[in-house]
């Protein structure tokens, strides 16, 4: 199947030359200066996994506090910080960086038949900024000043008058800092997808995973500025004395909500669209058929994000908007059903018309479809405005978005971890414990989140730190808490399985699943140059085209298309995928971590109010950029 061993001595020599050109420096310095998309993907993976642990610990503390009525496991103030940090962590510091930063970075060039991203140094910069922003925001928790007004941080609760500490300043600056990393990743993916595909891969031959990443990247690029503007206004209101959100001086508290949700609703789709991409990779591999309705699914992935920009005010039915605007947003919200349902039907039909092998990754995708449809059904209910007004700010909402975010975004992440584990490590995981881990997580999450619908309808509001007994909520809350710990057990089994498999697992070989896309044509783990020969592509399921793979093997034997004279990477025309030029890619740079450090100092100085020093640090950032560009590619 795959090109793992060189067929001729001449080819072996060329591969050795590629090895020398692309190999990273050894040791810690190699990791600090790396621009290899696989290494950056792994750095993202380990960092976001640690943050997932932090966000999960916060969730379990919340559930422990709520397990019984009238408990005092944590104080109400700590409880506020816990649920705020839980939301912020899971959304900004786990799901987005896990799906785009880890999965996207590692896999996108491999699926596109490329050797690296379009801007490798910028890719490294994105990781170091992400890491710095995570340290920045978690510092607040350790000094007891964590954000405490929820992840959507409504004013006036978050205004200086009612929240005088540094808690919200950490929020504003940390979120802006983090958005820089996400914007860099988004821009990176868009340009890589349009410019760095293997020649011959026109857009209609691009795998659906890449369409999903493209949709998520467009979403991030156009949604994040609204959040940055919003948090900038709040920072100015709190620290300079402006009046954006101050109704007594002509400002508006609702302005915060509008800007927040103009970002916040597209954000929901940004979270789940990469998960769709993972699903559309796993389903063909384990049904051994091309996905049903490929063009419709590709368009639906993009459409779901596009429509997502027009629905924000359905988060705001309780604030007193005019009926006509509420009806507009309800109608737009109903429209989201169409692209979502197209995808659900395409996935299900692929199961039915293919030969489904329910290995662990596919089990997670089946579970994802179940959770997505369940969460989608409660989502549809919110189109009925009076119903939404009744359940606003109750646990019914919490149940809905956890079905979507845990069920529809995190399940595919778990599935993807199993699916690509053999590619990343070269080892197979153990199948039986894998399947058991799925069932434990599936039962655990449903036990955790389903009763929330009921307590929500019974009137339990979100974000209460405790509740009295005798309201009929106790048993449900206890069940939820048990479900939380069951889920934890399942996740630990999953991680344990992968950990043991890394050391004890049988060798996987390049292509254990007979997977559909290009990453399965190269060795496991992939070499630093990804592909010895730039692959030939004539369909979106390149690994299932034996004629093209045979052509690659012949090219390798003849030493063609190996580009072994430098860090070379073909770039193509954006739509047709015709060869444009052979570009010289940068390799290893100390500047990304330096720039990220300087930027971290800018934000720290802004936090402690030394604006002059922050300005000087800004100049240092510009100098670092000049240093960055002092290194030019060879002519």
């Amino acid at each position, binding site marked *: 199947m795959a090109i793992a061993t060189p067929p001729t001595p001449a080819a072996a020599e060329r591969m050795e030359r590629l090895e020398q050109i692309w190999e990273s420096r050894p040791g810690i310095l190699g990791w600090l200066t790396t621009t290899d998309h696989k290494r950056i993907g792994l750095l993202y993976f380990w960092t976001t996994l640690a943050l997932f642990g932090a966000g999960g610990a916060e969730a379990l503390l919340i559930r422990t506090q709520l397990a019984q009525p009238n408990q005092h496991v944590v104080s109400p103030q700590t409880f506020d910080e816990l649920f705020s940090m839980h939301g912020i962590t899971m959304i900004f510091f786990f799901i987005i960086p896990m799906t785009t930063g880890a999965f996207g970075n590692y896999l996108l060039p491999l699926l596109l038949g490329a050797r690296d991203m379009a801007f490798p140094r910028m890719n490294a910069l994105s990781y170091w900024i992400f890491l710095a922003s995570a340290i920045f925001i978690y510092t607040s928790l350790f000094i007891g000043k964590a954000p405490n007004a929820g992840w959507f941080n409504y004013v006036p609760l978050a205004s200086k008058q009612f929240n005088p500490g540094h808690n919200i300043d950490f929020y504003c600056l940390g979120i802006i800092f983090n958005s820089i990393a996400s914007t860099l990743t988004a821009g990176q993916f*868009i340009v890589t997808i349009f410019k760095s595909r293997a020649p011959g891969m026109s857009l209609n031959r691009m795998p659906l995973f890449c369409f999903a990443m493209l949709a998520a990247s467009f979403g991030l690029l156009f949604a994040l500025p609204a959040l940055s503007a919003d948090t900038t206004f709040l920072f100015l209101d709190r620290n300079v004395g402006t009046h954006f959100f101050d109704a007594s001086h002509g400002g508006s508290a609702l302005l915060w909500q509008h800007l927040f949700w103009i970002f916040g609703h597209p954000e929901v789709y940004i979270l789940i669209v990469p998960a769709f991409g993972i699903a559309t990779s796993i389903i063909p591999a384990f049904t051994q058929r091309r996905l049903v309705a490929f063009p419709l699914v590709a368009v639906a992935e993009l459409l779901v994000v596009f429509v997502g920009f027009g629905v924000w005010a359905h988060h705001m039915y309780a604030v007193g908007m005019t009926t006509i605007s509420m009806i507009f947003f309800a109608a737009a919200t109903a429209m989201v059903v169409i692209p979502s349902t197209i995808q659900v039907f395409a996935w299900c039909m692929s199961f039915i018309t293919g030969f489904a092998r329910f290995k662990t990754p596919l089990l997670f995708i089946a579970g994802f479809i179940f959770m997505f449809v369940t969460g989608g059904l409660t989502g549809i209910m919110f189109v009925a405005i009076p119903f939404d007004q009744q359940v606003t700010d109750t646990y019914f909402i919490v149940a809905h978005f956890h079905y979507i975010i845990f069920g529809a975004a995190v399940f595919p992440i778990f599935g993807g971890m199993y699916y690509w584990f053999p590619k990343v490590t070269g080892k197979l995981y153990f199948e039986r414990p894998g399947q058991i881990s799925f069932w434990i997580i599936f039962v655990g999450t449903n036990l955790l989140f389903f009763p929330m619908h009921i307590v929500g309808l019974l009137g339990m509001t979100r974000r209460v730190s405790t509740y009295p007994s005798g309201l009929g909520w106790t048993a449900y809350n206890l069940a939820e808490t048990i479900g939380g710990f069951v889920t934890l057990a399942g996740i630990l089994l999953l991680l344990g399985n992968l950990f043991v498999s890394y050391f004890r697992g049988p060798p996987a070989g390049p292509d254990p699943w007979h997977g559909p896309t290009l990453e399965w044509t190269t060795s496991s783990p992939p070499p630093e140059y990804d592909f010895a020969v730039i692959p030939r592509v004539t369909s979106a399921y390149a690994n299932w085209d034996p004629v093209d793979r045979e052509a690659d093997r012949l090219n390798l034997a003849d030493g063609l298309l190996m580009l072994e004279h430098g860090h070379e990477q073909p770039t193509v025309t954006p739509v047709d995928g015709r*060869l444009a030029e052979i570009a010289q890619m940068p390799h290893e740079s100390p500047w990304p971590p330096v720039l990220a450090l300087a930027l971290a100092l800018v934000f720290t100085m802004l936090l402690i109010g030394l604006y002059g020093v922050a300005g000087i640090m800004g100049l240092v950032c510009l100098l670092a950029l000049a240093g960055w560009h002092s290194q030019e590619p060879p002519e």
Partner: protein
Amino acid sequence: MSGYSVPQSQVGRPTAWWGMTILIASEATLFGTFIGTYYYLRFKTPTWPPGGIPEPKLVVPLVMLAVLVSTTVPMRLAATAARTGRLAATRLLIAVALVVQSGYFAYEVHDFSDQLHRFDITRNAYSSIYYTLLGADHAHVLLGVLFNLWLLGKLARGFTRYRIHAVQAIAWYWLAVNVLTIAVIGTLLSARA
């Protein structure tokens, strides 16, 4: 020898152009949000500008806008000169643009602090968005000035493909900043209507 027949002339835009396009898309969205905020606040306030703040001046901002926008011409010409390999012309055109842009920036900084003395940013919501919008625009002009300074420094040591792409990307940046400035000044002057 590589096995590919690489096209002789440049096919499509260089990745530098694409990178700049992403930056511009992101910044334009940010300004769109600011301008949206301006009108959101305006439409819920009966008198605009509120709180006895005078209407913005008309003639001087428009003249200054015309001065800034006129630098689009030398920047575009510089991009063309760079593509056709005329080093001296590229340097001269960028230097001319830089002088005008720096003059514009210096005047605007002076004017900005002048206005702050008349009504400061903490007066009300109008002053908040007024200075935020204007300040954000000036910051983008300043960044462009620094880009041009850096370009001249780079071009002092001749052309490389990398630098030619940089000239093209920065000319594209200036076009976008000039359009953004038209939108910003237009928004602020709409308070007179």
